[in-house]
């Protein structure tokens, strides 16, 4: 069909922003705000900001949206408005500019967009009932058409890419190279001084995982080289590291 969409890899990317839509049915803070206004049957031009702000905060908390930047930004605006509404008006009432005006304008505008979106959705449904040709004969073997490409297209594309470079995901693995060399030096020093020691003594008071791994690899390496011997008195018990004499290198394996 004409409008058949390949499931694009973008979908996965889009879910970062799109989870809001999928999880709770609101497409954004304005959608949620409009919902609250409608539910309360409030005159959109005279929104009781204090009440709506509280409801908004409660709603994003309940919906678990209080981590989403777009919702937090709106929450901030509402709180600011709430404060502004409490400020003494000063002077005559005629010159007072309603601090809610901008919000009202945005809500009305957004309401329109929703209305158009709804119309478009119906239109797309009607269109989808009319099927296009499903089978297309394989394309003939023709020499490829001369490609048109110009430098403006390319520049526009580069900047689009730059604008859209995804923010790093939270669980991205950070490369933290293991410092095996350093651990080897530390252990060698300890062996020199003590001859035998508990492996906990090979690292600092609050070791990072990286440090633990570094020490572990260093120990294995030193044992392999026959410089130390690793001993565990009981299963899951502490590891004891002892200096190895040159004559017992083979046993260390």
């Amino acid at each position: 069909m004409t409008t058949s969409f390949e499931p694009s890899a973008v979908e996965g990317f889009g879910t970062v922003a799109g989870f809001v839509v999928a999880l709770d049915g609101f497409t954004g803070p304005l959608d949620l705000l409009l919902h609250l206004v409608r539910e309360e049957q409030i005159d959109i031009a005279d929104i009781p900001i204090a009440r709506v702000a509280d409801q908004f905060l409660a709603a994003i908390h309940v919906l678990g949206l209080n981590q989403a930047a777009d919702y937090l930004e709106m929450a901030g605006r509402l709180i600011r408005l709430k404060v502004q509404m409490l400020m003494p008006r000063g002077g005559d009432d005629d010159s007072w500019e309603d601090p809610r005006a901008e919000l009202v304008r945005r809500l009305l505008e957004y309401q329109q967009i929703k209305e158009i979106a709804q119309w478009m959705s119906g239109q797309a449904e009607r269109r989808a009932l009319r099927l296009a040709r499903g089978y297309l004969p394989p394309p003939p073997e023709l020499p490829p058409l001369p490609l048109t490409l110009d430098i403006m297209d390319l520049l526009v594309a580069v900047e689009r890419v730059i604008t859209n470079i995804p923010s790093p995901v939270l669980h991205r693995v950070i490369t933290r190279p293991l410092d095996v060399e350093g651990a080897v030096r530390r252990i060698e020093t300890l062996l020199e001084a003590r001859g035998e020691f508990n492996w906990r003594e090979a690292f600092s008071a609050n070791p990072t995982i990286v440090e633990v791994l570094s020490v572990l690899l260093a120990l294995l390496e030193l044992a392999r080289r026959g410089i130390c011997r690793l001993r565990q008195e009981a299963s899951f018990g502490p590891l004891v590291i002892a200096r190895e004499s040159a004559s017992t290198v083979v046993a260390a394996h």
Partner: protein
Amino acid sequence: MNPLPPLSQLIEAALFASNRPLTLDELEGLEPEATPAEFRTALDQLREQYEFAGHAVEIVELAGGYQILTRAAFAAAVERAHAMQRQPRLSAATLETLATIAYRQPVGRAEIEEIRGVNAGGVLRTLQERGLIEVVGRGEGLGRPLLYGTTPLFLELLGLRDITDLPRAEELTIALQPHKVEPDDAADGALASVEEG
């Protein structure tokens, strides 16, 4: 009814071999000898043939071109017979973004985000990769932002002949009020009056 004339046959063959609308310009390439008027007549003859013989398909004017589509009445039966697959629906977020672009085009990302109140990066990308919107120019001001517009595929998706088939602003419950958003001060609410425009 007379058998189809050769030019109508050519048009039928080409339209059958395409899954997108072909413009009159494109169709005219089928027979360099024929005039645009002859093509129009041939198209009408094909259209009438489909109608009078009671075919399940018809010629539809779409996105500035012509396409053969089945009549809506048969979709349910065809779907029941698993002869086709239904398209995934567009999400609400996608539709809202499309609506914003359709009415404000050419429009930049900042304005779209201001109108919808959410980050638009992901949706814009999806729409672009699906070919429903494209960059149509650059705006004035800081960084000369990219401006987006809808594509012919967008019209196809909605079954529109052209962009003027969209409901006019006056037909909406609330009239659209064009206004300019300065990307940065919007947050601090330069107060705009609702009455303007």
